[in-house]
């Protein structure tokens, strides 16, 4: 790395001799094959502030962040640190300038303790590691920013929120002044989000700068001092001043048009029972995953199941879909028993199932859209692809799927388009007309535009008289769409409330296991 840092004469900012920004990027251009990821982007952050990068997936916000921390190098443009030009050929160089990124997917060694993970990669370690010393040092750093954490705890046993805190402590321990948090709330429950925001405030109070990367509008408004909105690699707007942004305006800057994320809860008739779950319990490898779950979903009704990931939602969905046989209890679809009869039988009874993992479970990544449509349909011995071609083209049009046609490979679809293919297949019916739709995390990781489409599709399906079971960790989504809301905690339903009058705080508490009704549900 060159140690010659130039004073840049033509610096466009800091008129009138104001202190230079802690970090600023100027006229950044970054190309990937076929994509202009960043097109002449300017960005700056001051000490002690939270500056949010807002944009849809693919808008270029993660690319910009990667260049700010040294993961990528810009094709042109330059970066200033306290007014001095720096070059960042690697993340290590970023760290030397006090810039660190906390990735969305944590990079921690699960078998190591918190302290071991924190000191991992720092260069001032001796050959012999004195655990007591590092434990004390790590605890001291954590404490000074109000991030209490047990340095001796094994990371593999920590919750997601705690792991994230370990990542943050690690960055601080390495001397970070500027932290880039890449979609930090994507993996957290509401209570953990609150705690994270407290930590963010403590860090900014101590003079740290936080670059917050997100597409969740509510949070952005709550935490940001400034917001920079990116769309298609270009900056489309700035909003300055805490709390002065509003979600509608930001959504418009982000997507380029007006957006309605909460479709009107249309008044529609609720019909007879389609899904009946009776006392379903499931024990896997000696662990009680589901205990005594009973509920019904009616035609034309959407029932939402809220809960923190890993509380049995996936198993519940798989049980309804016939992929898992419950240890006891029964499931029936449209009045016919489907317990123990396998997924094909469940589908013959009118089940459609959109699983949590789109690519790899719902869709086969290496296969074309056309072949993926065949996945849950009856197939002749000689597969007749030609006759499905017109329907595939029609679904691509109807669901506004951005693809080169039915031969487009699923792996190359964006998350939103993959989800649309999945919904198109499941709702277009294969073996029988769809009566019951089970959807898991239908909008996770999607663009605002795609979220709008997916929610509208679900709403239309409900209006058409289908019974819908919506399982999601996104509480806002559950509350804005569902007619009835259940909260699942440790495999049991611990709370039930009508969707319209549901209270965020009460549901959130139930998700965290704090509900007063918790005790009756299990064991």
């Amino acid at each position, binding site marked *: 790395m060159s140690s010659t840092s130039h004073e840049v004469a033509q610096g466009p900012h800091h008129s009138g001799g104001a202190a230079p920004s802690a970090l600023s990027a100027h006229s950044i251009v970054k190309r990937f094959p076929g994509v202009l990821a960043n097109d002449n982007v300017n960005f700056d952050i001051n000490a002690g502030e939270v500056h949010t990068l807002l944009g849809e997936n693919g808008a270029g916000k993660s690319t910009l962040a990667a260049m700010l921390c040294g993961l990528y190098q810009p094709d042109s443009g330059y970066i200033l640190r306290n007014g001095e030009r720096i070059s960042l050929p690697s993340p290590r160089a970023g760290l030397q300038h006090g810039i660190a990124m906390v990735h969305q997917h944590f990079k921690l060694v699960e078998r190591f303790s918190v302290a071991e993970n924190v000191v991992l990669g720092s260069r001032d370690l001796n050959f012999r590691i004195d655990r007591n010393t590092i434990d004390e040092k790590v605890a001291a750093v954590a404490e000074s920013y109000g991030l209490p954490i047990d340095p001796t705890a094994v990371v593999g046993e920590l919750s997601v929120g705690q792991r994230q805190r370990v990542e943050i402590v690690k960055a601080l321990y390495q001397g970070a002044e500027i932290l880039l948090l890449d979609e930090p709330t994507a993996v957290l429950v509401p209570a953990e989000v609150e705690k994270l925001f407290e930590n963010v405030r403590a860090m900014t109070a101590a003079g740290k700068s936080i670059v917050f990367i997100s597409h969740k509008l509510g949070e952005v408004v709550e935490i940001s001092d400034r917001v920079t909105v990116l769309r298609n690699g270009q900056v489309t707007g700035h909003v300055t001043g805490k709390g002065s942004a509003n979600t509608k305006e930001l959504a418009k800057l982000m997507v380029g048009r007006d957006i309605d994320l909460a479709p009107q809860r249309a008044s529609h008739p609720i019909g007879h029972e389609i899904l009946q779950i009776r006392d379903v319990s499931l024990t896997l490898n000696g662990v009680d995953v589901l205990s005594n779950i009973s509920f019904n979903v009616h035609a034309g009704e959407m029932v939402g199941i809220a809960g923190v990931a890993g509380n049995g939602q996936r198993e519940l969905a798989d049980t309804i879909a016939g992929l898992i046989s419950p240890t006891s209890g029964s499931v029936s679809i449209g009045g016919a028993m489907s317990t123990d009869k396998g*997924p094909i039988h469940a589908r013959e009874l009118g089940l459609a199932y959109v699983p949590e993992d789109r690519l790899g479970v719902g869709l086969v990544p290496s296969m074309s859209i056309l072949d993926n449509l065949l996945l849950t349909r009856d197939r002749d*011995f000689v597969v007749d692809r030609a006759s499905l071609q017109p329907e595939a083209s029609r679904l691509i049009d109807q669901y506004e799927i951005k693809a080169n046609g039915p031969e487009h490979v699923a792996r190359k679809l964006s998350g939103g388009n993959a989800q649309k293919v999945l919904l198109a297949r499941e709702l277009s019916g294969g073996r029988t007309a769809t009566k019951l739709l089970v959807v898991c995390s239908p909008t996770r990781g999607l663009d605002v535009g795609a979220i709008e489409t997916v929610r509208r599709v679900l709403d239309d399906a409900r209006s058409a008289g289908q019974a819908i079971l919506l399982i999601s960790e996104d509480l806002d989504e559950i509350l804005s769409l569902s007619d009835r809301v259940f909260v699942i905690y440790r495999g049991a339903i611990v709370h039930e409330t009508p969707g319209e009058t549901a209270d965020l705080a009460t549901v959130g508490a139930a998700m965290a296991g704090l509900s007063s009704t918790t005790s009756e549900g299990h064991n």
Partner: protein
Amino acid sequence: MRAPFRLVFEQRSETPKYLAAVVPIASVVAALFIGVIFLFATGYSPWETYSNMFQDGFASSTGITDTLGMSTVLICTAVAAAFAFQMNLYNIGGEGQLYMGMLASTWAGLALGPHLPTFVMIPVVMIIGALAGALWILIPAYVRSRLGTSEIVTTLLLTYVAANFINHYIYTSGSYFRAPNTMFPQGRLVADSARLDPFGTTNLYPTFFFVVLLALFLYWLVKKTEYGYKIQVISDSPRAAKYAGINANRTTLSVMLISGALAGLGGAMLIVGPVGRLDPGITALGYGYAGIVIAALARNNFSAIIVSGILFAGLRTGGEKLQISTDTPIHIGVMLQGAILLFALGGEAFRRYRIKTIRTKVVAQ
């Protein structure tokens, strides 16, 4: 001081179509180039050696028929390997399954041959050979599909067991399979009704056309049928298969059994074709292992295997004749096979990544 540039592997978003042909061809060329170095080092003329090999392998009339004859079994063991590989099942014991196919079809030729006419015997011998190959992979296939035991280890180890079976029946005096009154131990020739005639005085048998049709049939099976569809789903994402109600265990079992049967069929083709008995030299020829290389070179594409199988057979026949005519060691052919595999596998990197040189900037702009 830093190097003036560095190499960067950049993942391709899409593999250009032409690379599917360029990589295998370049692998062969690169292997031939490595061969040049060895030929030089050992004092042979590379040009003369290669032109002789080409002449004896492809360009002369006996050369081409010998090559096509040799390719028959190689294509068969290659489709056997590819059939399992396409589902990420690594049956590398095709060699052993071929031995067992050979043993069983020899038995059929000896025991049933005298009583049945040719048009019955040929299919019977082939079917029995295929069944024996399937039987030999049954245990690896079962434990793989039920318990997930590595089929690589089990199929490989069973090859050594199969080799000893063959040797036992050839070398044990009084063995049913051993020819009496020979100076060196040798297998007994099967009945004439269990053998096909070659075309004229060549070493090319009708089985060649059968095996070409077989490869094309397998291509159709995988690309166009529901069975092939299931294989594709399971090999890409087992969880998607479960989601769709596809029984992965059963398909795993059947794919491995078919792979073993195809290898066993290769053994039967040696009996109805050029060999006709248990031959002590068989274990040195490595038909099963060569099939793995041919499948890899063709990237498990059944129609491409026909081409790569013939190419490989040409290298072999050319190499064999070289030894007779010019006293160049036969091992040059074997070495080239190994080098081709190495480059073909290494060439995968070029399909997935674009290699760029980046100039190291001394001062940014």
